[in-house]
């Protein structure tokens, strides 16, 4: 077991802060995109790329790498930020987000960006890819790498998600771990009002998944949850991460209108200030 100490936790927390700064900067530059759900997932994604997963930016296709599938593909900024921070491409390229001819598409394109494992964006499809990847790993004998997926809580309104969850349990895919970014908001408002998928943990359990509920912003809870997933045999693990949409920027937190909105110039400056960058560091 890897060590979970104050210093390993703090190192990942620092990376999560960097991801949030990149997210705000690139969305401010792009002028459009999905801010709230990128920020809510920043701690999970930081923990995966900077503690959990075996990936090598110098060998993005190495066969035994762990795979991450961003099923909620609209949170592309958090994935791009992690890949750049990890060294898959220069951080300066993040400024090209959503611009004509740039590899950083509005939703992730595996054919254009090194380190992107699945072309996602149409909701529900990523978890299905992840199940296929986990099946492939098992067919090859198993035990060589793990597959991670990140789902949105609005996303699980898609029927395909439940087809995929059913298959993952049926085929006993204990090499698969899925996070649910449970920020409780979707474009049209609270998930409880638009189309409630609750109770989500009960549903994952009923579908045969080992299911944990944690604070998705507490690295000290994400790490042991991942350890537990590794030690679970015979079934996949779901980590229900309780999160706050827009986490880290006070004026964005818990507001559905920040689902698909990018900050303007003033808001970008304000948000970066809150994240410790700017004329008046926090």
């Amino acid at each position, binding site marked *: 077991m890897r060590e979970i100490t104050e210093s390993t936790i703090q190192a990942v927390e620092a990376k999560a802060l960097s991801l949030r700064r990149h997210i705000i900067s690139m969305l401010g530059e792009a002028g459009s995109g999905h801010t709230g759900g990128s920020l809510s997932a920043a701690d999970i994604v930081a923990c995966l790329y900077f503690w959990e997963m075996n990936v090598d930016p110098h060998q993005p296709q190495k066969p035994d790498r762990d795979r991450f599938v961003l099923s909620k593909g609209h949170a592309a900024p958090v994935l791009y930020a992690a890949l750049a921070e990890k060294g898959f491409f220069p951080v300066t390229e993040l400024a090209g987000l959503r611009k004509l001819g740039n590899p950083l598409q509005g939703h992730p394109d595996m054919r254009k960006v090194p380190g992107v494992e699945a072309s996602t964006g149409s909701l529900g*499809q990523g978890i*299905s890819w992840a199940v296929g990847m986990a099946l492939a*790993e098992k067919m090859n004998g198993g035990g060589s790498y793990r597959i991670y997926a990140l789902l949105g809580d609005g996303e699980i309104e898609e029927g395909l998600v439940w*087809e995929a969850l059913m298959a993952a349990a*049926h085929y006993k895919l204990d090499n698969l771990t899925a996070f649910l970014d449970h920020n409780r908001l979707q474009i049209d408002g609270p998930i409880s009002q638009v189309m409630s998928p609750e109770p989500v943990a009960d549903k994952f359990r009923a579908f045969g998944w080992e299911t944990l509920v944690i604070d998705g912003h507490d690295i000290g809870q994400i790490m042991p949850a991942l350890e537990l997933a590794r030690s679970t045999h015979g079934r996949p693990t779901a980590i229900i991460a309780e999160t706050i949409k827009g986490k880290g920027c006070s004026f964005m937190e818990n507001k559905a209108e920040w689902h698909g909105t990018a900050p303007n110039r003033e808001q970008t400056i304000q948000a970066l200030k809150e994240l410790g960058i700017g004329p008046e560091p926090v």
Partner: protein
Amino acid sequence: MEKQATRDAYGKALVELGRKYSDVVVLDADLSKSTKTADFAKIFPNRFINAGIAEQNMMGMAAGLAASGKVPFASSFAIFATGRAFEIVRNSLAYANLSVKICATHAGITVGEDGGSHQSVEDLAIMRCVPNITVVAPADGTSTRKAVEAVYHHSGPVYLRLGRPAVPVLYDESLDFQIGRGIELRGGKDATLIGCGIMVAKCLEAADRLREQGIDVSVVDMHTIKPIDRDLIARKAHDTGAILTVEEHSVLGGLGGAVCEVVCEQFPVPVMRMGIEDRFGQSGTPDELLEYYGLSVDMIVANTRILVSKK
């Protein structure tokens, strides 16, 4: 005349393919006895995945398998593979340009007694307009076996359209099957019959009858609908001056549409499209349905005579 259903040939070809290539995996959605993937499942249980009655997830899982280095063959009835699962095929397979082979059986009205809900008359049109997807509709058992090998080696997503009923075997093992290259089965000067799938055999039969009536037609097996063999179509338009297309599919957007797109741009001549007029199928035997929807040898002969008279 020897007969074989293209779905039967597919099932046998899959087993051969599985023996030759260890990266071949097969998915089905609870129809393996009908699509004939069951033989592969029996011999290679570790490389067969039953998705259950969940075609969308079957295609999504196929994407993940392909992204992990496998070559998945995903089978269901044409209506579900291209209809129910369309947007997963579009975004997860085609957009990502993954080497997944969508091999759908029970295409067209010759599904028969199950009726219109299960008879896909629009799959060629749907698949043809999606970027990156290659569309193949083989005419007989031999060309199906060759097509299965060819699509395995082809990089990118492929839609292979297969049928339920036994149809005449037209080719022997010497067939040189190449994706994108139509096969000129017979030369002729008065018109060209371009068919695909199970209608190719009917075109050949019609050509025999027409010859007895003094009309000399060429017959082409246009097994690849996309990318279509533009050179062959243009040459036949030039050499024979009239084209009749015949497909077990809607007259909108399939083989007939594809041929017209080439003819109007490269060498305009009269074209007549035979297929299912813009409507759904219904229950009946395959032969009754082909007759009812105007896809009989008699109708090919009659339409060719009209077409030739317009030249």
